[in-house]
């Protein structure tokens, strides 16, 4: 059976497309080294327009208004510049309501685009630009550690990684958070106390990586000013050992945390990228693989969720689970030599 491969890698090749949905100016060039905060592309992501009724403003017919237009499409204006007119005894004119440009003009109307700060899309990771996507962005590649999660609050940051404790199995409580974590990206086991998010915001920390979080905190987490990423899901699950060991090993290092919204169809996963200087050139990691004897796996659902083990055998016959569901299972050896039977659909592969 083919299943997903969890993207927990101490060292792998990482290739990411950073693009905007609208056309803009790409500011990087091929083979350029970029830092996470470097701007890749700028574009008016949410342009604002004003439809100006010139004919009404000048109190003339639309065709006459077109004759009185002084500007053409594309012309840049400052606030107060005359767009059309003058006309009549009182020399009526229509002026630019704000700085901007004429987008379209005709039939007595002008669609005016207001100057607005362009959206700047940052690289979000250290790496090298290996390809330019004209007017949209770039492809960035790097080598390093990668940990993907399954929930993010849509924010992105870059900073020093600080695990809150020596392991990432315990609950994060407000008392553990102090000014020493200011400006860092913290990592911890799980969180169920809303005060943790509030305290973290007050310090303020730069980002938060958790094994799991109570789903009751989702609204609070979404409104937090800093990125939050969950690796194993919701509840009181400690962080899985594979992700934990990577994050602990990279303590005090600069990491890129992209807590983007999880969209498996588009392949968007929240993730941590920790670029490493290395001469080795590992392959890009697989995204799917077959469940087989000997494969290292993580349990994604049920009472043993987030536990890691190795497939001892894929049983040929279906088993009836305590829920009553009849399904194919694998016997999995967990740490401590405990052997459990887990449905194949509840397993994902961890590459070694």
């Amino acid at each position, binding site marked *: 059976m083919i299943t997903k491969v969890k993207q927990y890698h101490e060292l792998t090749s990482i290739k990411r497309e950073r693009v905007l949905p*609208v056309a803009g100016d790409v500011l990087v060039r091929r083979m350029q080294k970029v830092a996470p905060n470097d701007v890749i592309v700028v574009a008016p992501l*949410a342009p604002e327009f004003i*439809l100006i009724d010139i004919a009404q403003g000048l109190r003339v017919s639309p065709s006459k208004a077109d004759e009185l237009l002084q500007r053409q499409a594309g012309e840049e204006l400052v606030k107060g510049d005359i767009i059309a007119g003058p006309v009549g005894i009182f020399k009526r004119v229509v002026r630019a309501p704000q700085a901007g440009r004429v987008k379209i003009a005709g039939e007595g109307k002008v669609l005016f685009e207001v100057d607005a700060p362009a959206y700047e899309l940052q690289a979000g990771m250290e790496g090298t630009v290996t390809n330019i996507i004209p007017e949209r962005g770039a492809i960035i590649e790097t080598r390093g550690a990668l940990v993907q999660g399954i929930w993010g609050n849509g924010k992105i940051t870059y900073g020093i990684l600080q695990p809150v404790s020596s392991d990432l199995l315990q609950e994060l409580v407000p008392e553990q958070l102090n000014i020493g974590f200011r400006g860092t990206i913290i990592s911890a086991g799980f969180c169920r106390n809303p005060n943790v998010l509030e305290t973290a915001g007050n310090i303020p920390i730069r980002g938060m990586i958790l094994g799991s979080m109570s789903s009751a905190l989702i609204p609070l987490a979404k409104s937090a000013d800093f990125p939050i990423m969950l690796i194993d*899901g919701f*509840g009181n699950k400690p962080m899985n050992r594979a992700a934990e060991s990577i994050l602990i090993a990279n303590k005090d290092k600069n990491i890129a945390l992209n807590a983007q919204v999880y969209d498996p169809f588009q392949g968007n996963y929240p993730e941590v990228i920790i670029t490493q200087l290395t001469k080795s050139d590992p392959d890009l990691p697989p995204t799917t693989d077959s469940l087989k004897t000997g494969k290292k796996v993580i349990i994604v659902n*049920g009472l043993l969720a987030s536990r890691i083990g190795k497939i001892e055998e894929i049983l040929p016959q279906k088993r009836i689970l305590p829920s009553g*569901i009849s399904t194919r299972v694998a016997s999995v050896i967990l740490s401590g030599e405990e052997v459990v039977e887990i449905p194949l659909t509840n397993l994902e592969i961890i590459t070694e």
Partner: protein
Amino acid sequence: MDTTNITAKSAIAVDIGTTITRSLLFDVASGKYRLIGMGTAPTTAGAPKFDVTEGIWRSLEELQYFTGRTLLSEKDGVIIPSTQDNQGTDSMVATMSAGNPISVVIVGLLDDVSLKNTRRLAQTTYTNITAEISINDCRTATDRINLLTRERPDLIIITGGTDNGATQSLLSILESVGLSSYILDESQRPHILYAGNEKLQDEVKAGLDKISKLHISPNIQPLLGITNFRPAQKELNEIYKEVRRKQSGGLHEVLSWTEGSFTSTASALGRVIRFLSEKYEPEKGVMGVDIGSDTTILAAAFQGEETLRVYPNSGVGGGAAGVLERSSLEEIKRWLPIKIPDTLIRNYIYNKSAFPDAVPTEEDHLEIELAIAKQALRDAALDLIPSLEKQIDSTGILMPAVEPIIGAGRILTEAPKRYQSLSVLLDGLQPTGVTTLALDQNGLLPGLGAIAEINPLMTVQVIESNTFLNLGTIIAPIGIARPGTPILRIRLYREDGRSITRDIKFGSLTILPVEMGEKVSLHLRPLHRFDIGMGGPGKSGKVNAIGGALGIVVDARGRPLQFFPDEEKNIQRNEVWRKTYRKYS
């Protein structure tokens, strides 16, 4: 009709679902069209492949393996038409539900008339309505332009105005739509579906044709109070295909294999239900239900008039969190027969959304999933019922007579016990009168809907070949009484002459033990003016019924089902009902 007398044609139906791609082979066996075999594989429409053909190919490989029939050739792909040595297939159809919903902005004249109809039209496929525009929403032209450029929808649906009705108001909105479309990059311009006042069609063409991907269909409301969705629905299905073709690779190949017989899964489901409604009892409708991972679909049809609704982000997998967010934890908990802490329920739902393929290992977890399914279906039914062709009450909350009701989706087909599938359909839909609940165990409905277009006989014969599992005949009287009051006397006659009589009390759930497939005759005499769909309150009648997996279920719990404000009481009552089911399953 015996198919040996006609030129038999085999067909493959492929359904590209959210997680699974399923291939079905139909051909003639023993003189009739039958399902020959099925193959499945993970869907590859999304990341990282973004190419549906790999999933289709793998599912066909499995189909080849199970049927022993060569269907694929390395050189030519799917072998079409079939060869003399019985390789390949004569035709192929495809349906698809995979992919994020299409983002839609709907535009109409008035909130309560045209926007309501536009919403109904948008709901006939996989859409996410991100904004609504009407003349009474107080937006200026500038606001509308900014809204449309900000949303950047895949599709704008414009309706409004009866034919030859007012034009000026709609024209002012059309100007905003045109301008917003014009200033976007050509590649980003939305599809525009115009299904409003036909008098404006020429002006719409002149204004929008060159600056957008314009589609025009007949007015969905040509006269006040008269609606006609079918042509616009068809056009919407074409747009769905175009948007999907842009999003997922390989659809060009699928269109070539299927010679264009490619449609959305929902549309195909609607078509087969419509088809069945023309075959079955004219006085009743037919209903199809698909509770999927991401989406719930309801399709009902009365004598060929179809009502289709697609509810994206409302399912038991990726859509489970959507059910919770749209309804409430309290509403989901009402269906549970056991006490489960709120935090556990909520966390389980969000984890299920993140890992939609995972199966529930514990009994508690399965109960949560069944409760989500019931709530998803209840929400959908309450939305659908008011717009059905036939109504049986002024409030629009009681399900009119439909028979059969056919359920599909893994939560129903893979439920460990048949009573669990039955209870999801019964509690979610709350049918009235006498009906039959059936299960589409092999997920044939969309494929048969697509095939109906090219070979209706195949659809008919496959359906008649005991394709669906009969879960049970349902008798659900309508009326109000004190719990415990006798409301229905049933006399059940078996073919061997034996009979039993039961008095049914209000509030009860009773199962009459009738073997699967056993034919019985039922004499139903409602008391206290209860209505069992025999022509009015208090009217008695006789019906022939066939025993299903749960025999014959008499659901006298009331319509709509009432709940206690006290959670504990609901749990106790649900547990009583569960015990009733378990006794007979």
